[in-house]
């Protein structure tokens, strides 16, 4: 059973659909008492960094999430904005992030003459940077669907588990101990995403 945090930021529906497809039960909730019982947690998210942090703080989710991720050390996966929230800060806003992974979130920065569009939108390849159970059994051309204007930048390479090239190589998946974050959308990435979510479900 995977608990998906519903804090009003993003489509939980497609994550549930893919988990169902790979035979994993899930529960969508914003109730701290239910979250307290979670064995594994997914934090989704689409939208603005500060708005998401405000919602987490408003709904008094901060304390229980800290407890689960840092004390109980349950496997925790942040997706897209949910990953960015795991870092210390974001150039998108002023609110501090959860700060569980030594990294910050920065905007794509390209030279003036670059024709690359922001957001980075579409399918792109990933490369393993540090081995992780989350990225086991990937295919040679393992690809994911991305849509984002900001990305994580780890303080130490050991926290980067996948890299992707868009103008330059950025950290497309990060990890510290039991806490994982992916910038792309596994729930929208066919069998490539199923593999990743299966890996997470097996932890």
């Amino acid at each position, binding site marked *: 059973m995977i608990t998906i945090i519903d804090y009003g930021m993003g*489509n*939980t*529906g*497609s994550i549930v*659909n*893919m988990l*169902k*497809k790979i035979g994993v039960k899930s529960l969508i909730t914003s109730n701290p008492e239910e979250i307290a019982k979670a064995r594994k947690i997914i934090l989704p998210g*689409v*939208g*603005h960094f500060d708005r998401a942090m405000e919602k987490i703080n408003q709904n008094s989710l901060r304390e229980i999430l800290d407890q689960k991720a840092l004390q109980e050390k349950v496997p925790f996966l942040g997706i897209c904005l949910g990953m960015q929230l795991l870092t210390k800060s974001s150039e998108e806003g002023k609110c501090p992030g959860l700060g569980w992974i030594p990294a910050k979130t920065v905007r794509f920065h390209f030279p003036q003459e670059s024709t690359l*569009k922001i*957001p*980075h*939108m*579409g*399918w*792109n*390849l990933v490369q393993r940077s540090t081995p992780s159970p989350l990225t086991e059994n990937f295919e040679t051309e393992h*690809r994911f*669907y991305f*849509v*984002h*204007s900001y990305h994580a930048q780890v303080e130490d390479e050991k926290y980067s588990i996948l890299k992707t*090239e*868009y103008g330059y190589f950025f950290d497309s998946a990060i990890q510290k101990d039991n806490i994982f974050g992916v910038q792309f*959308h596994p*729930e*929208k*990435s*066919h*069998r490539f*995403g*199923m593999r990743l979510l299966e890996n997470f479900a097996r932890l």
Partner: protein
Amino acid sequence: MLKTRVIPCLLLRDESLVKTVQFRKFGYIGDPANTCRIFNELEVDELAFLDITASKENREPNYKILREIANECFMPLSYGGGIRSIQMAEIIFNIGFEKIILNSYPFEKPNIISELAQAFGSQSIIIAIDVKKNFFGKYETFGLSGTVNKKKKPAAWAREVQDLGAGEILLTSIDHEGTWKGFDLDLIKQVADSVSIPVIAHGGAGNIEDIGKACSKGHASAVAVGSMVVYQKQGMGVLVNFPDKNNLSKVIG
């Protein structure tokens, strides 16, 4: 390397999928959920759905069909047709679609684009611009499935919706749609060069070379295809298919 998206664009009419020619002549393609299941197995990059009668009939989206589709499809999904409020958009996002497409309503209320972009982010808002050439060979923008001339130049309208917060433009040439004769490259270039947001070229794709040209000559960021992925060949029977990845990668980056 970012892969250029090739997006099957499917048309919904009275709970069936249809394919049109120049927005007319409705050919029956099949059941929406079944067709999507096949596209899912073909691992297409993304799927777009347009309910071509919702706005004309002034009704809400058919959420039941959208739910059936989202249960079976594990790729990005977009939906257009009849969306007129934040509430409707929210239902569609919760079902598991991540983008919504608007065509007609923004002519009436341009600010709906800003409201939606503020609530859900620009990346989830696509504006569909349907274009026909008039008698004098000038491009004009149409609403309500190509039936109402909105008297706007496509490039100007594209810039306007970009400034209001649209994240992408789905640009359709009504004259080329369903004809297999290739994209209207002038139109695509004109619009793509006027905005900084991605333009999805739509209307006229007959083979993969057309797809390549829409990107290289038209400067499109992505391509939407209809006839060539639902028919065996021009004038032949229904066959849901998708071009081979290796062949596609020869024409697009």
